[in-house]
């Protein structure tokens, strides 16, 4: 089968785009977020069989600020928002962070491939925006860590 020249060029260009570090990073992070969501879906909040245990609670006997986050995630994915708030009041915030990041990875990857001239600006906007969202989301956890250390 003979591929027309213009089509061939497009395929090569798209392949080279997919090998770009930014696209690979976006793809990997998206995959990690999806894995986090799958983890929350697989384990049932009613059975309480989560493999991750709080090390702080194990050592000190005191629950930390992020205790109940897995429970909260599982409950949010099942639509039980009120219960999720009871397990961890920051659960919804962290869940929204992950969801927004998944969406941003897809949107930014699309723009990166579609508009090659604005790639540098796009990366700067992405890095700045994501850092701000990250800080806003995890601020209570950071405050908790630095209050004790």
């Amino acid at each position, binding site marked *: 089968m003979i591929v027309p020249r213009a089509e061939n060029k497009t395929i090569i260009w798209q392949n080279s785009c997919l090998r770009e*570090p930014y696209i690979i990073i976006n793809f990997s992070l998206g995959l990690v977020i999806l894995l986090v969501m799958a983890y929350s879906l697989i384990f049932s909040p009613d059975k309480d069989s989560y493999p991750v245990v709080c*090390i*702080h609670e194990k*050592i000190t006997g005191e629950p930390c*600020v992020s205790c109940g986050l897995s429970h909260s995630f599982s409950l949010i994915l099942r639509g039980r928002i009120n219960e999720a708030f009871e397990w961890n009041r920051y659960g919804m915030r962290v869940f929204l962070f992950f969801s927004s990041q998944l969406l941003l990875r897809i949107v930014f990857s699309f723009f990166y491939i579609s508009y090659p001239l604005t790639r540098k600006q796009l990366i700067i906007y992405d890095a700045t925006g994501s850092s701000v969202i990250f800080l806003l989301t995890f601020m209570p956890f950071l405050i908790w*860590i630095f209050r004790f250390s």
Partner: protein
Amino acid sequence: MNINIKKKNMEEANKNSGQNLGIAALITAIITFVLAVIPCVGMIAIIPGIISIVLASIGLSQAQRNESPRGVVMAGLIIGVVATMISFSQYFVTGKLAKNIEKGKWTEKIQEVVDDVEDNVIRDLEDANVSIRIDDGEDKVEINVVSGDSDREKILEELEKVNEQVNDSTPGGK
């Protein structure tokens, strides 16, 4: 001709190896960063943190050797170092918490809170009207207990009045 193509491929492979390590380091570093700020799993994040630093260091040395771009590698290294530091700080947090518990600072505070709650519950119960109703279809039993402070005051006032009347009616008074 063939040798030239092979040389070019080798150079590209060398350049890519540094870049690939940089990408791997950056992804590991970002995941480490997110894990490091969650107190429950923050201490474990030191392992991927060290891995990201190692990957970034190797990537950086390769990038320097081949004079390829270092932006991604540097980003991976910086984020990896910061994330590892945050993760490391969690050990101090746990140590401090454990020390406080050992000293009994928190156990005293917890006891104070428990005492406060106990007092509040007793105070609330003093003012409460307790009503128990048992109904099995045929028989009905209803018990009402009023143990409010206001009732006690009334009882005390009544007792005082009775006492005054008794005192007034005692003989021998001038």
